[in-house]
């Protein structure tokens, strides 16, 4: 209890009233008076009321001005945030509520002090935190603390899907080498079936640009060979959509015209060798570049490669080991036929560039293709690849997987290579772009562009892992977030649409064109 004497002394002093000497007794008498004591106590009590009120105001001020940032939300994604009222109000908050726009999607529960729900709208919202503190009751107006809450749009909703031919006529389509944004197919391919889909990536759909991927396939009735091609036009090349198309079509055309009976017979002979041995080659044939001597140091390497004289067997007759000899024959066959086909594609592209008066690099495209033929005891599978698109061959009981090609990737491979680059044909690596496999049967022969490989295999190393391919096939079988399922059944006429739907899978950061061809 404050001392009335002290109080009076300070009061008199502040009023400059002299109470020294004999006057001092007056003060003593004054403060002994009951009425005066009562008045003094009232003053003290009123002071306390003022201070309490002020302190409350200060508490409210501090709560309102305390930095409070609550986590951001995303439209259609469950949101939950529990306010820490002890921390925010230092134990003073006795009531809380939230004021937010109607149809917000989020609600505040003031028992649990939690804001939760599924946000419906995106934007930077100002919501009000309403509260009362100790000493206030339900008659007291609540205090308002504005808080910002950021609700992000659902990333999926931000992507536009603008058709590449929106508002365009046929003349425009022809002049601009237009191709459909999405294509798919399901057909018998010789003794097997092929299902294939090619979809424009979201990054292209977002700006209404073209699909740059392409595919083509063909069964050659006359000799039993089947061919599957997949190509990925480079995003940075302005006519790559046409580049990938020309590359695929040129390969088919090449084999239509050049897979003569004689050539087909020569590989049949090789296949028979494996049939009698009934086992695949121990190793991938170690191919030296049989034509590199002829191709090196030549200014006209392109023409030379096109006209490379087929190497004859006389050069190989010194071999006596049958296995080594057959490997040599494989090398020759691959080089003389698949090599020529790949060069035919290059040549077609070069001719087109000349005709269009554009640069060859405007047509940059990767290219992979596979040929296969059924023999009595198995299949011969021959492949070529340039660029970063893989070819996988999986055996009948899914116990072995062979990645048929190496990928020209990133930092390690010195960057992506394209079929449009003349230097690939003269490189010492050229012969390693081919592969041959004799397999009793296969469950899947898979060709894909990086739009599939990047999200589904992530790194090159996974392409050589059987487990990763098992995961991939399980994914196709419906083990995925979207529950999209592709039923690999010869009688399933919906399969091409199923594959196309499966290919809409969502993978952040992966919105490239997607092409996937599966022979089964």
């Amino acid at each position, binding site marked *: 209890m404050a001392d009335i004497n002290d109080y009076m002394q300070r009061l008199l002093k502040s009023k400059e009233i002299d109470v020294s000497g004999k006057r001092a007794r007056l003060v003593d008498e004054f403060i002994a008076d009951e009425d005066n004591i009562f008045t003094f106590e009232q003053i003290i009590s009123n002071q306390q009321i003022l201070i309490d009120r002020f302190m409350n105001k200060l508490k409210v001020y501090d709560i309102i001005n305390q930095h409070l940032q609550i986590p951001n939300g995303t439209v259609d994604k469950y949101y939950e945030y529990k306010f820490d009222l002890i921390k925010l109000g230092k134990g003073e908050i006795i009531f809380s509520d939230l004021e937010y726009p109607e149809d917000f999607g989020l609600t505040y529960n003031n028992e649990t002090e939690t804001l939760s729900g599924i946000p419906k709208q995106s934007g930077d919202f100002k919501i009000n935190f309403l509260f009362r503190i100790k000493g206030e009751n339900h008659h007291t107006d609540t205090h308002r603390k504005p808080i910002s809450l950021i609700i992000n*749009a659902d990333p999926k909703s931000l992507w536009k899907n603008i058709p590449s031919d929106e508002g365009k006529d046929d003349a425009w389509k022809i002049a601009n080498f237009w191709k459909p944004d999405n294509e798919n197919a399901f057909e018998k391919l010789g003794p097997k079936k092929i299902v294939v889909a090619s979809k424009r990536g979201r990054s292209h759909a977002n700006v209404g640009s073209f699909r740059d991927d392409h595919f083509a396939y063909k069964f050659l009735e006359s000799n039993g060979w089947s061919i599957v091609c997949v190509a990925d036009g480079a995003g940075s090349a302005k006519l790559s959509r046409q580049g990938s198309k020309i590359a695929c079509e040129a390969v088919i055309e090449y084999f239509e015209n050049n897979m003569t009976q004689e050539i087909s017979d020569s590989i049949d002979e090789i296949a028979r060798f494996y049939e009698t041995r009934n086992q695949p080659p121990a190793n991938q044939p170690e191919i030296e570049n049989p034509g590199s001597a002829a191709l090196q140091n030549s200014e006209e390497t392109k023409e030379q490669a096109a006209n490379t004289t087929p190497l004859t067997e006389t050069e190989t007759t010194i071999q006596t080991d049958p296995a080594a000899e057959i490997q040599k024959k494989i090398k020759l066959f691959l080089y003389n036929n698949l090599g020529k086909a790949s060069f035919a594609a290059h040549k077609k592209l070069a001719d087109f560039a000349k005709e269009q008066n554009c640069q060859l690099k405007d047509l940059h495209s990767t290219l992979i293709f596979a040929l296969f033929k059924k023999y009595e005891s198995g299949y011969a599978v021959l492949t070529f690849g340039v660029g970063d698109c893989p070819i996988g061959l999986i055996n009948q009981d899914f116990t072995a997987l062979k990645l048929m090609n190496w990928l020209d990737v990133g930092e390690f491979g010195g960057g992506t290579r394209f079929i449009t680059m003349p230097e690939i044909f003269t490189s010492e690596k050229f012969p390693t772009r081919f592969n041959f496999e004799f397999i009793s049967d296969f469950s899947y022969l898979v060709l894909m562009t990086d739009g599939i490989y990047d999200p589904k295999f992530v790194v090159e190393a996974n392409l050589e892992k059987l487990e990763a391919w098992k995961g991939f096939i399980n994914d196709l079988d419906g083990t995925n977030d979207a529950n999209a399922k592709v039923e690999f059944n010869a009688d399933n006429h919906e399969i091409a649409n199923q594959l196309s739907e499966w290919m809409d899978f969502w993978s952040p950061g992966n919105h*490239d064109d997607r092409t996937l061809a599966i022979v089964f």
Partner: protein
Amino acid sequence: MRRLPVYLLLDTSGSMNGEPIEAVKNGVQVMISSLRQNPQAIETAFISVITFDSEARQIIPLTDLASFQMADIRATGVTALGNALKLVAEKIDTEVAKTTAEQKGDWKPLVFIMTDGIPTDDWQVGLAEFKKRKTAFTVACAAGSGADTNILKQITDNVVSLDTADSASIGKFFLWVTASIGVSSTKVEDSGKDVQGLNELPPPPAELNIVV
């Protein structure tokens, strides 16, 4: 997923007090809101803010756009640009994933520096550290006449200057940074390759003088 890391190095020395610091805060806010509307950026771009005054600190670690929240910044002290360069070098080491046979690393980071003054610390030591790290590109912006473009030129070839450090000019700089991040995020996704340099970015607006 491969992230596109973006480091903003912002001068918060005393001379930035008032309009410039408010413009920087606003610039970052507008940038973030705008990038959030870009489907490629919101999936790919990750932003970190490093401020430097008498010392450098990372006030926001590398954060995705969807959860990014700008912290309050105040202008005070001197200009420890060298420390900021050293700090960003350390953060690139710890925050940016490297590509290995088993995983695809992040894209090379983009670095934007904005300063209105002359470094007061031993900036060359920090620069030596910074130069050891690979970035897709580094842009330095000299805001107003107090900054020394010759020093910035030693940090990076890509130097732009603003005649005055007023809110309109600083706003324009951030708009250009926004466009550059947007274009870079599209580019890396489309081509699957790192952005190589400034020439792949949208041209800067007239308010930004390119220092040659």
